[in-house]
């Protein structure tokens, strides 16, 4: 199968060019048109984005999202690869589930699925899952995300096993006893609202503990890989930065919602803003942004976490945590931070950076590379219209905002996975 995409610019260049892709690979640039010809509409082409943290809710919670809607949403957001989280029902702790998800996703033709599997059985944190089998079945990462790893000893055993399999363990770093019943950031806003707070120290304390586990193993000559998910506080980032200086195998991700929203958003008691970890303060957001700039934050991830509207219409205490916005993560980042971070940095944080975290080859646009591409329209302003989302979660904090940088075309494995109508 051959496609030629014409009339677009390679990221970093202003020259209009065309690319031909054949059998899943980039054949070359500026060749004679071949196969199906697609107009790039003057957009900018980059490697397709990589998401390390999305909740696709299959199996068992398909009223919120399923593989088809979630992977279609990802492709519409410019993503070529999505790592889905295992906190489904049942939990993805069984190789048979991994295989069936991969089989199903392979037939859909949207973004490529790379399942994460549970680190522990049932994500209960007490006994390791069958990590060897899970890897053999196609799992790319181990995590109990959706839960926190309270049993430090089991996490340590899991890190050791995962490292021997060449795998990363990612963690939802939050001390559950410090978090207690907190549902939003603990601070002036939570006090004013009379809503139970979740202190920044809950995150920092857990990150500190986990780093010490990594440090202890490293000191025994046993390097392991820990990835801290959705880091939200300045203090925790400080700890990660320090761990990196010590040469430890620790990486972290930050979510666009923690960069663009703060706990002030909860003043209307709207659970749409309820996330875990919670939206923090502007000072935290600024610190995280600085971390993206200086490299102490490794990559961006959305933590795309769809729920039904009815669930999100509950009160702040009862509503589930999570914001679903994989379709507008790039436009949001580009519109808000294109000026400060720059296009190329934002693209790197969503492509090469997550690949490095996973130990995957860094995506490139060179001839011979896999044909995973996205074309962004960096000029046209468009309103965020949740009704048009491919995701089943058709509501978002950014509804009605005007953003630029929308994907117009996503190619995965040499095939069109999304094309704006």
């Amino acid at each position, binding site marked *: 199968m051959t496609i030629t995409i014409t009339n677009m610019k390679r990221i970093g260049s202003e020259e209009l060019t065309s690319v031909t892709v054949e059998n899943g690979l980039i054949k070359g640039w500026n060749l004679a048109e071949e196969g199906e010809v697609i107009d790039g509409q003057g957009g900018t082409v980059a490697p397709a984005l990589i998401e390390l943290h999305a909740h696709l809710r299959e199996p068992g919670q398909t009223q919120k999202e399923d593989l088809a809607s979630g992977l279609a949403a990802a492709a519409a957001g410019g993503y070529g690869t999505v790592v889905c989280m295992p906190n489904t029902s049942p939990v993805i702790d069984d190789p048979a589930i991994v295989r069936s998800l991969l089989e199903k996703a392979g037939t859909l033709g949207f973004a490529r699925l790379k399942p994460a599997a549970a680190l*522990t059985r049932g994500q209960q944190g*007490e*006994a*390791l*899952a*069958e*990590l*060897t*089998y*899970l890897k053999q079945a196609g799992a790319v990462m181990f995590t109990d995300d959706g839960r926190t790893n309270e*049993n430090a*000893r*089991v996490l340590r*055993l899991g890190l*050791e*096993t995962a*490292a*021997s399999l060449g795998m990363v363990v990612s963690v939802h770093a939050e001390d559950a006893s410090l978090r207690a019943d907190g549902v939003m950031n603990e601070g002036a806003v939570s006090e004013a609202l009379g809503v139970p707070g979740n202190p920044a120290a809950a995150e920092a304390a857990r990150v500190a503990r986990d780093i010490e586990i990594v440090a202890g*193993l490293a000191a*025994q*000559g*046993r390097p392991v890989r820990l990835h801290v998910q959705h880091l939200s506080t300045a203090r925790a980032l400080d700890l990660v930065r320090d761990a990196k200086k010590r040469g430890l195998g620790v990486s972290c991700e930050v979510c666009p919602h923690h960069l663009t929203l703060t706990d002030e958003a909860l003043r209307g008691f709207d659970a749409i803003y309820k996330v875990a970890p919670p939206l923090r303060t502007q000072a935290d957001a600024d610190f995280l942004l600085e971390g993206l700039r200086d490299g102490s934050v490794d990559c961006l991830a959305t933590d795309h976490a769809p729920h039904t509207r009815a669930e999100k219409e509950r009160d702040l205490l009862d509503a589930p945590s999570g914001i679903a916005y994989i379709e507008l993560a790039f436009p949001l980042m580009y519109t808000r931070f294109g000026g400060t971070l720059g296009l190329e940095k934002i693209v790197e944080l969503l492509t090469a950076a997550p690949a490095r975290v996973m130990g995957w080859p860094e995506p490139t646009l060179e001839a011979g590379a896999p044909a995973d591409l996205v074309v962004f329209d960096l000029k046209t302003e468009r309103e965020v219209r949740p009704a048009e989302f491919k995701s089943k979660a058709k509501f978002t904090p950014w509804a009605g905002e005007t953003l630029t940088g929308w994907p117009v075309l996503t190619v995965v494995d040499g095939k069109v996975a999304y094309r704006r109508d």
Partner: protein
Amino acid sequence: MTATATKQVRPRHLLDFQDWSPERLTAILDNADTMLQVLDRPVKKVPALQGLTICTAFFENSTRTRTSFELAARRMSADVMTFAAGASSVSKGESLRDTIEVLTQYRVDAYIVRHHASGAAHLVHQYSGKPVINAGDGRRAHPTQALLDAYTVRQEFDSLDGKTVAIIGDIRHSRVARSNAELLPKLGAKVVLCGPATLLPADLAGLPGVTLTTDPVQAVRGAHAVMALRLQQERMSGGYLGSLQEYADTYQVNEALMQHAESGAIVLHPGPMNRDVEISADAADGPRSRILKQVENGQAIRMSVLYHLLVGRD
């Protein structure tokens, strides 16, 4: 203190191999050849230990090891006194010290000790002042097992020099692995310890002649002997493993794995075996297996150790 400058004192106990020179260890192996000949005689008895009383103090159950030691002692004409903690005052809370001091009043000349706590054999030596043979203490040492393993390998290849022994399984909790890792390099062999990362303490890599790997194929490559260790079911509930099946699929010593070893490589197991878990039937019962040979050699080695400690001369 330098070892070369000090005249080596003959050890009067076998707690581990720390005080043991390669020469003395080799002498024990050489002497086992003679003991095997004794076992082949119609009257399997020599008077070497006549008049001595040996107590097998087993604070942890092990019928096989105890039988092997007791037969070894009897075949050398010792009187054997059996102390099994299960049926004793230990279960009523008596301390190890009290127990040993009472036993010593029976004029015990030497102890053979098995205990669930690392270091217990040391304490028995300290409290009794008598020669002690460690028959397995905690996860620390099981020296006669390592000697019989070494002897079995030497029997096969004439020498241990330049040979490689791969030990696969729960290294972390294995006194057999620790004792072998200590002994075999002293005798010129290399040891590869292999198991799931959670059961493979990285610090063991500091021992001379010892390497670690989590990859069983890598472990057996170039190995002349491959030893499977018994996997305890509790390792599952301890969180060390995903499942027994996953362990067996990855780390089981079987004929397929042995294809990666040296062509004449043998299979060892300290017993008792979980067939189809850490070892397959084809490996346990096949032509490479020396597992029953180990049992026979175990008796000869224990006779040799008793002789060396209690009557041998410099």
